């Protein structure tokens, strides 16, 4: 059974509990009015009232149909006991009306939504009506009001139950629609985000440019910075609009497995630094087949290293050497600049831990720094081959 239907039944049983217990209590109180019934009938009626309340409780907590049928049976017994008595006090008549139209009718709501529920409810109501009529005939009392209340009560609760069921069905369909639409939205939006995240190299240059802007472009000419900003803005716009990208920037979006992917990507990094005033000389392999993630991590880490050289080394030249054996690809970033004491500098300060080590670790690689004051710096980046 579907969850929403369980919830619906729970709600219907709650309505039954409110109605049924209100009715049972009401009828019980009516019977307590002096003169409402003679002693033996009173005792039976009291016992039946308690039974009805108990059965209602069982039905509304467990949802047992047998208990619901028991409620109706006990109500019939109550009607026959009190209705067939020689004297029908107004209080007793009220108790009967409440029993017929409220207490017993309360089970109509949860029963009507079951399979063949409408038929079941009609049959139960008919049994009750027949027993009221029988009592009236036996004792010659006018029980029109009891009959009327019973019919109205059963119909009203049946209608409420059926329409609640109907409302739940419609809500269920609409919730399903919204859920499916939302799932489509999620897929689309996550795909888009994935594309954005995958455009890691693009984001690296954007990050570098933004950092330069934040530091008022120290060490870079205004024109170069403006050109770089223009290029980055154009690429971001293309990424946003999903425009097919021209050849030069293709590599920046990490495409599949172009043979010259590596050299193109490295070339774009090189050009970026040339513009910023750092001349990067490239040595070694330009033809490497690496999984996209690994390549992105390597190129990203490389860019960060070069940015550190540009900012801190005090020289305008750096060398990048790529070598590989059957297990590993190594990239060495070397400068002949100021150098530093690796132990004396907190790696976190350079953004090194996060942007270099973190990235490489994520693909199973590692980074090592060799430097001492006055004799330049070498950073060795390693990533595993597939």
């Amino acid at each position: 059974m579907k969850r929403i239907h369980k919830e619906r039944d729970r709600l219907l049983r709650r309505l039954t509990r409110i109605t049924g217990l209100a009715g049972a209590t009401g009828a019980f109180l009516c019977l307590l009015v002096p003169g409402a019934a003679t002693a033996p009938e009173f005792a039976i009626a009291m016992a039946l009232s308690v039974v009805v309340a108990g059965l209602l409780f069982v039905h509304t907590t467990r949802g047992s149909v047998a208990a619901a049928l028991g409620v109706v049976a006990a109500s019939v017994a109550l009607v026959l006991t009190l209705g067939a008595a020689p004297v029908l006090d107004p209080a007793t008549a009220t108790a009967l009306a409440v029993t017929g139209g409220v207490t017993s009718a309360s089970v109509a709501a949860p029963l009507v939504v079951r399979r063949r529920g409408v038929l079941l409810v009609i049959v139960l109501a008919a049994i009750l009506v027949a027993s009221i009529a029988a009592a009236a005939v036996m004792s010659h009392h006018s029980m029109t009001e009891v009959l009327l209340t019973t019919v109205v009560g059963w119909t009203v609760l049946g209608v409420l139950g059926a329409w609640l069921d109907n409302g739940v069905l419609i809500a269920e369909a609409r919730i399903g629609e919204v859920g499916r639409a939302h799932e489509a939205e999620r897929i689309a939006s996550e795909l888009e985000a994935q594309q954005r995240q995958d455009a890691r190299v693009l984001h690296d240059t954007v990050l570098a440019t933004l950092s330069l802007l934040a530091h008022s472009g120290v060490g870079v000419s205004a024109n170069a910075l403006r050109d770089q900003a223009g290029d980055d803005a154009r690429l971001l716009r293309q990424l946003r609009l999903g425009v097919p990208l021209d050849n030069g920037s293709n590599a920046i979006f990490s495409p599949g497995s172009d043979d010259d992917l590596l050299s193109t990507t490295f070339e774009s990094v090189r050009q970026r630094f040339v513009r910023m005033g750092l001349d990067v000389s490239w040595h070694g392999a330009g033809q490497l087949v690496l999984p996209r993630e690994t390549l992105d991590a390597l190129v990203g880490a490389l860019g960060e290293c070069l940015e550190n050289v540009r900012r801190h080394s005090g020289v305008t030249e750096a060398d990048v050497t790529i070598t590989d054996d059957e297990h590993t690809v190594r990239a060495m970033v070397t400068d002949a600049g100021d150098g530093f004491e690796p132990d004396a500098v907190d790696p976190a300060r350079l953004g090194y831990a996060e942007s270099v080590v973190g990235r490489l670790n994520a693909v199973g690689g590692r980074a090592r720094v060799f430097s001492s004051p006055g004799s330049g710096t070498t950073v060795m980046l390693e990533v595993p081959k597939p």
Partner: protein
Amino acid sequence: MSTRSPKIATTIGEHSFLRPARSATAASNIRSSHGGRRLAIGATIAAGLLVLGHLARAVLMAPYFPPGLGPWPGWLALLAVVAVGCIGWQVFRGMPDWFYVLLLAGLIAPVWLDLQATSGLAAIGVTPTAAPAIGAVLMPVSTIRSRTLPIAVACGVAVALLADAVMQVGTAGSAVVPLLALAGGAVLPVVLTVAMLSGFSRLVRHEADLSLVQSTVGTARSAVGMRASEELAKLDFDAETLLEDVAAGRIGLPLSDDDAARAGELAAGLRVRLIEGRNDTWLKHAVAESQYLSGRVQVDDPTGLAGPLSAAQREGLLLALWLLVADPAKPSAVPASVIVGCRELDEAGLDDVEVDADDLHVATSVGITIEVDGVIHRRVDPATWDAVANVGVHQVVSAASGFRIEITCRIEPEALAPGQRHPAGRPIEEKSHG
């Protein structure tokens, strides 16, 4: 990025950035439709039946009235109020506050006329008919406006009937009991309708929330999450705008302090989005996106171990969490806090698990602990345990003020489906089919 300058914030009008908002609106439309039009129709039909019942009683009693107008002035007044209400509904295309209050106040007329006509007649079995019918009339009313006011009005009618009964108890004796029953009968339909409406909208709210959150079940193992996607898109757009302004010379170089600070903020935001949060899984997103789970459930899964759970396991876990927290029907069963923790199980401890020499090193089982504080495990919805059973083998440990569910989840190798990412970030090679 709450400190983004207002200028940039206003430029983000692109529809693509409002994506999750659309489904949120759609969901709240179902929610706020106030129990649905179907329910209003049902309540109206039921109300009509009840009114007919009272009318039938009026017809039956009419011969016993003293000569005069009988029970009809009250009924005519009631009819007038209902008619004015229906016409006003059409004219104003809705229900302005003043009109609504005026109509409810107008109900004093039928009550007063009806009680006048039947006063002192309880002894011969004549009771008010139009006044208790007001309870029925209020049923559809409670579907369109506030739910407390109709109950208050129905209670007012009931009080009037009770007062009438008290005044006649000396002459009529036990014949005033039907009056008391009628007083109850005036309140019960409204209470029932209100209970039905609030229960229904609670049900719809819950189901809608669950269905929205369940879309996380089908995502890849380290998904970005809708919120993060939107943030990333916004950051990209802000960066684009700033860079374009710099390139076009709209912002001069070197940058002013404000602009430089903005560039720094954007860079920091992008860095966070791109580098951190890559271990966030569907579980974190589901909790963040749910109206009920967020703020009540804490996820402690720094390495993204919940990622490789299968769709069925995810659904079970989500449903279990959801059943644990989202049940205001029983206020005593709402826990004070729920913490979900994921940890890698010691594989040596699992004797029958064959550890593959898999260089990917994928955990074959994950331990999930749900710590619930502030509710004892017997008070929890039994459906929770079925849901937990779908996640894996579990055991419940009772604690001082709550309990702990410890689940051992087997990770099926199929969980490494094509296109999904390895927890370490490496893509899984696509399997070739056929």
